[in-house]
């Protein structure tokens, strides 16, 4: 039986429009785009030219510092555009898909017969390695490092997040193969929730977590299982991506198909969809949006995701696409004193504490208040289930005090760990942005 760790702090936000457990396929997009920014912390060097023909699995760009790390095309077809922004920053590399998909054949492999070097090289070559995120800094892992451990959270409790039990149903074997491969590289830890189909995973240390959001964050789990010390490196990877690695070794093909949740109050039929990374968001939500209101489309869940549009491409790590009302035309009168029965709040000055726990809320994208300095204390702390003082850490980052950031444990966190705190913050401080900047600042200083 797995170890059980109970977490007290946190907050479950019950949003309307959870995906029903039905999976359907998405219509193929005309063009697919790989967005380098989704692999935070790496500088892309584009290795294709517009007009080049590529197969699924051919590199589109590589990391400038580590050219052996490839970022490969999810489809076969013709490179149509290398989209650049300010200072020639690569925004996306777009490929027009062939009608008949052709895959690069990397060759089926028996994971058990491989050594660590062979596993790593296979992953680097096939673009799978790019999905590892390292801590400290929450950036793409460095292939030269030997991590102390690899952590996988096999559930997400973020609002509207995809349920791994649905997304990986019937793919437990692929997940196990993926774990076996990772176990060649380092000690593997898997965090599961109650009733997880992955609780029986072998070749890894499985820990069960009970608690409210963000207990499903891998950073929170690391903090409770084996916290990261200064100078140590651990890698994390999502459960969906472990199964993808398993499929790669079993089939020899770099297949980036995944099952994502399409959810939210503005989605007509919230459900699961099988899609390819890089697909057009518009094709994923086509015909499924309630059109009477202005809608905010989010690549990811409403707490950690980012705003997207029908013209954007599905980012590499996405496990869901969600839609909520934009709400910028709400013009709500006297918000500071009206009862506002429909609103959700942790504060008892609203009435959501009186409502049944099952009640689902529609929350729009407004920040619902003015930006203030941090006034009320203990807000972040109550939803931050790590042995870290979140407020003090954020203040150290704002002050640019690198020594203090380190002392307070910045190398244990990723921006997503502050998502719930950002939600409850009555001073509306952009915590995730600040933490991201802090991590980047520290990395620049240390490298």
């Amino acid at each position, binding site marked *: 039986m797995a170890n059980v760790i109970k977490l007290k702090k946190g907050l479950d*936000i019950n949003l309307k429009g959870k995906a029903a457990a039905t999976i359907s396929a998405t219509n193929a997009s005309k063009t697919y785009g790989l967005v380098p920014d989704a692999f935070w912390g790496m500088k892309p060097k584009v290795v294709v030219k517009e007009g080049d023909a590529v197969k699924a699995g051919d590199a589109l760009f590589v990391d400038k510092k580590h050219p052996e790390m490839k970022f490969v095309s999810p489809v076969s077809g013709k490179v149509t555009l290398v989209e650049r922004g300010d200072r020639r920053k690569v925004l996306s590399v777009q490929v027009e898909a062939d009608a008949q998909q052709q895959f690069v054949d990397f060759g089926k492999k028996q994971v058990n017969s491989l050594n660590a070097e062979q596993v790593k090289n296979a992953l680097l070559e096939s673009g799978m390695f790019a999905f590892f995120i390292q801590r400290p800094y929450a950036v793409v892992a460095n292939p030269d490092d030997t991590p102390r451990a690899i952590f996988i959270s096999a559930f997400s409790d973020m609002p509207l997040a995809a349920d791994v039990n649905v997304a990986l149903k019937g793919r437990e074997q692929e997940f196990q193969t993926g774990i076996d491969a990772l176990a060649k590289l380092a000690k593997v830890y898997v965090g599961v929730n109650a009733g997880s189909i992955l609780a029986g995973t072998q070749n890894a240390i499985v820990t069960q977590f009970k608690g409210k959001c963000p207990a499903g964050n891998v950073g929170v789990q690391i903090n409770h299982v084996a916290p990261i*010390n200064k*100078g140590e490196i651990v890698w994390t990877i999502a459960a969906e991506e472990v199964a993808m690695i398993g499929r790669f070794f079993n089939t020899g093909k770099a297949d980036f198909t995944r099952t994502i949740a399409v959810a939210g109050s503005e989605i007509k039929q919230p459900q699961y969809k099988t899609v390819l990374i890089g697909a057009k968001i518009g094709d994923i939500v086509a015909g499924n949006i309630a059109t009477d209101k202005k809608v*905010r489309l*989010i690549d990811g869940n*409403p*707490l950690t995701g*980012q*705003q997207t549009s029908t013209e954007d491409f599905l980012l590499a790590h996405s496990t869901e696409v969600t839609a*909520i009302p*934009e*709400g*910028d035309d*709400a*013009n*709500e*009168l*006297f*918000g*500071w*004193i009206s009862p*506002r029965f429909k*609103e959700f*709040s*942790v*504060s*008892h*000055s609203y009435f959501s504490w009186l409502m049944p726990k099952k009640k689902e809320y529609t*929350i*729009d*994208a*407004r*920040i*619902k*208040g*003015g*930006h*203030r*300095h941090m*006034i009320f*204390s*203990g807000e972040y702390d109550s939803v931050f289930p790590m*042995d*870290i*003082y979140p407020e*003090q850490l954020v203040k150290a980052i704002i002050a640019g005090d690198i020594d203090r950031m380190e*002392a*307070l*444990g910045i190398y244990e966190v990723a921006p997503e760990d502050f*998502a719930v705190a*950002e*939600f*409850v*913050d*009555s*001073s*509306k401080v*952009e*915590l*995730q942005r600040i933490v991201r900047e802090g991590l980047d600042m520290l990395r620049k200083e240390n490298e």
Partner: protein
Amino acid sequence: MGLKKILDNLKPTFSEGGKLSAFGSLYDAMETFFYVPNETAKKKGAQIHDAIDSKRSIFFVIIALIPVILFGMYNIGYQHSLVAGCEAECGVLCNFLYGLAVMLPKIAVSYIVGLGIEVAVAQWKKEEVHEGFFVTGILIPLIVPVNCPLWILAIATAFAVIFAKEVFGGTGFNIFNPALVTRAFLFFAYPSMMSGDKVWVNQNYMDCINGTIDGISTATPLGQLGAGEAVSYSAMDTIIGTIPGSIGETSVIAILIGAVILVWAGVASWKIILSTFVGGALFAYLLPYGDAEALNFQWWEQLTVGGFCFGAVFMATDPVTSPRTEGGKWIFGFLIGAMAIIIRVLNPGYPEGMMLAILLMNIFAPLFDYCFVQANINKRAKRAAKK
């Protein structure tokens, strides 16, 4: 909506470059007073937010103060009627209206002076006006003696807002509770207006008797104890609050209603309130004034007199000047309670110690935080060293 249109039409006038741009932050304050900002989340970061904001939290402090304010007004009238000898003719409503008439100018002065400075500073710094002063501005009239002249109140308020708050950077950065700084300023700059036994009952409009009375002496329980006399009020009087004292501090019942509202709304830390009472009770028990029977004063009555309750509930819990760590809050409260009693009992110069205790602990709040945060840092460093 009509109002929205009016505001939208006025916006260019008050924006940068507009005719009245000097009043931009005032316009902004009005707009956010009427409407929840329509600003939506940035492209990256949390896309949804809790409905709570600082405006609402701070407004709940004012709601929690309503019982105290209403009772305070009544008590002004009641105390006045007592010394004027007309408590028989003047009923509850009469007493209340009298108190209202005395109180309103004080509230008006405090708000006009304080908010005026806040708006001017916000405009100068090109920031939004913060809501913090709405609470401070109502707290100030509640913690001064009823006879405090308005011009002194205005000077004290201006001093506190400028030197206790704005010079530190405004709401969220001040070290001392601004309302208490107002009181401390009065206490040290105009001692005759702040203590003794002539300041606690309003004697300005003695209309219900013929002629005027000069210098009526009405001592507070703590004044009597400080002078070594027996207390002339029963425990019931001090709990209900029909005694002389600063306007907001007398009624334990009204303050406890406020405490329930504050804690329930999550605005004040119950840890601070509870630990203040624990610290106060312990030291009140250890340090009695003398013979309880002779003085007509049991040790636990310490917690019901003076500004103890009001300070514990409304002053010590100020989130900005109290510790940020949960552990720090326990120590902070306990020491406030303990220190208040120590000053009261052991220092002959100051019959009341709550204000000084809270201001003193405001200084120490960052130290308590430091201890807890440093323990966390050390733990992490130790963990890393073990590897």
